[in-house]
């Protein structure tokens, strides 16, 4: 079977605008989903879950969120870490205040609260643009982290200043807390990831997505087709923060279990997600996933090679990681500003025509 669109005629506009217009892609997508839901839980180990799978899924949500804001709507934000902290602390407060609340609801509400905070910090975006806005979002980053560090109400007056997650179950399986096993955590997050990716795809393909992209590409022209700039930008901030808040809530409650805010949600996290979407692909849902996968896998791989195989000191490996990340970012911006997703697209274009050059 060739990777080809010939003979795969579209007879309706719905079919023409589907997510995977080429048959083989569609099969690939369903196969991936089937493997993720049915096969992976059977073989998952604690090491793989904690080192790769859980962080990958959680960062994928954060990348989706930031990509909506930056990649689709063109607003830069360096406040991702701070917004994740909002999600994390919201989930903590909700769980401790309402012990009977279903974990799904807790996560959802954490997203909603973060969305509200995101809108608040998005308000200046009407007046300031580009890297001015980036610096403005740094205010969110530093202020929010400080807030959760200094106001004891947020960490329920615990002596250590940390927050630790209480045990919660979904459908009888423990998902949070020390006893929860990897399969349950993995499946819980996977369900949320798939739902959020589906929603992100839908929002970006239709009226709202086009209004975001219009603002990104040329805000003056966007206005003359009837797009309200403030409303559109705030919607992007809200949706984006909703995703990032959910990522933060999951990062704390399901993945880490206990969190010190400056360490878990510092500015480095903002950059990490930023790099994910640059390397993965700005304005691409698929790119958010490969970017997250790349940035999660690379340190693990480097550590395995340098520390595990070559026997170097850990700090040298860590420094190398910085050099490589920085170098890659520059390289991608020079060679392929649309990231791995674009490389993937170009490869497929070539494949479609293969063996003919044009």
């Amino acid at each position: 079977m060739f990777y080809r669109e010939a003979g795969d005629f579209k007879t309706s506009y719905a079919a023409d605008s589907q997510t995977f217009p080429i048959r083989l892609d569609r099969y690939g997508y369903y196969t991936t989903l089937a493997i993720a839901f049915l096969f992976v839980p059977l073989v998952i180990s604690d090491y793989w879950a904690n080192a790769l799978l859980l962080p990958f899924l959680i960062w994928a949500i954060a990348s989706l969120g930031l990509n909506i804001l930056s990649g689709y709507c063109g607003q830069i934000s360096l406040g991702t870490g701070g917004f994740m902290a909002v999600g994390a602390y919201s989930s903590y407060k909700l769980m401790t205040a309402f012990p009977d609340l279903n974990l799904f609801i807790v996560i959802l509400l954490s997203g909603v609260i973060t969305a509200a905070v995101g809108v608040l910090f998005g308000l200046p975006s009407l007046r300031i643009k580009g890297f001015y806005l980036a610096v403005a979002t740094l205010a969110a980053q530093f202020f929010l982290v400080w807030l959760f560090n200094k106001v004891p109400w947020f960490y329920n007056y615990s002596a250590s200043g940390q927050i630790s997650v209480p045990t919660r179950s979904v459908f009888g399986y423990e998902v949070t807390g020390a006893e929860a096993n990897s399969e349950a955590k993995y499946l819980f997050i996977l369900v949320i990831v798939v739902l959020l990716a589906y929603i992100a795809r839908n929002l970006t393909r239709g009226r709202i997505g086009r209004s975001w992209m219009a603002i990104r590409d040329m805000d003056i022209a966007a206005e003359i087709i009837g797009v309200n700039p403030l409303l559109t930008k705030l919607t992007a901030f809200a949706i984006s923060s909703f995703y990032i808040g959910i990522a933060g809530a999951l990062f704390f409650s399901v993945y880490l279990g206990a969190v010190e805010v400056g360490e878990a949600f510092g500015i480095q996290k903002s950059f990490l997600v930023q790099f994910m979407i640059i390397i993965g692909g700005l304005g691409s849902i698929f790119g958010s996933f490969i970017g997250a996968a790349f940035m999660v896998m690379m340190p693990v791989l480097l550590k395995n090679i340098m520390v595990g195989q070559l026997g170097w000191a850990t700090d040298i490996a860590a420094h190398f990681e910085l050099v490589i990340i920085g170098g890659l970012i520059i390289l991608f911006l020079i060679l392929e500003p649309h990231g791995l997703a674009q490389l993937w697209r170009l490869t497929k274009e070539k494949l479609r025509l293969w063996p003919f050059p044009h």
Partner: protein
Amino acid sequence: MSADFYYTIEVIINGLMTGVLYSLVALGFVLIFKASGVFNYAQGVMALFAALTLVGLQNGQIPFAPLINSIFGTNLSTFGWTLPTVVAIVLALGVMVLFAYLVERYILRYLVGQDPVILFMATIGLAYFMEGFGDLMWGADIKKLDVGLPQGGNVWLESATEGWAEGFYGFYIDNLDIWATFIAVVLVIGLMVFSQYTKTGRALRAVADDNQAAMSVGISLRAIWVIVWSLAGFVALVAGTMWGAKSGVQFSLSLIALKALPVLMLGGFTSIPGAIVGGMIIGVGEKLFEYSIGPMIGGATENWFAYVLALLFLVFRPQGLFGEKIIERV
């Protein structure tokens, strides 16, 4: 006058001194932004890198020693000599110029005409790269930097002002801060003279004004970029040396340098006086805020004060204090 009043004055003076250092970093941003439109996020890391290089050269460290040791199993650390400060400074400056050349040759050249945001992201990548590279080259441990400037409180000033009020023990001001201020003033005057009265300086201003027009009268854009990045490297070296002498050469230095961003928000990205005044306002503002309100709300407000102030400022006056009003043409 009460002791409180004098202590407030002391806070303000110390704020001004801190502000000078913010201004120095901000100055590097302004230089590069004016000439090439690049918002150089790496300026702070450049200061760190310059300071690391200076210390490394002074102490005769072998570059990449830990890495070489890791690979070859050797046990290298230093050459066994120490360099005089002046020589080390000149060599460190040479490294920064080389760095400027490499940035132009391998990064800027390929990103000409890209969206400013892309360039900004590239400099974030550059910052990561340099941080890792500097650590690999010189090691990541906290280093003491001594360039021979006097340290500690100024005894003369302290004793002269002691007893001005009941319970006031005199102004405590660090000698190093006084020197830093002095050097910063000399540096700024030097830069202004350079840009007003030299041929290169005029070329710089021409490029900043309109790079197309500058190119058409035969100014080489690439040469100019190397020059401004070298200048920014020089400013970074000065800033890094001052910060390093004050609180040791370590990674947090690049985070402090991040404060130059809100400074620019206040001062405007294209104005050298703006960068200086902005730095002062932030320096004094955050110290005063911490002194007067900090204790009531948990302290450590310096972490965010500058950014929030800049944010509020931006909402009401987006072009900064001195920047030109941005008029959008339809």
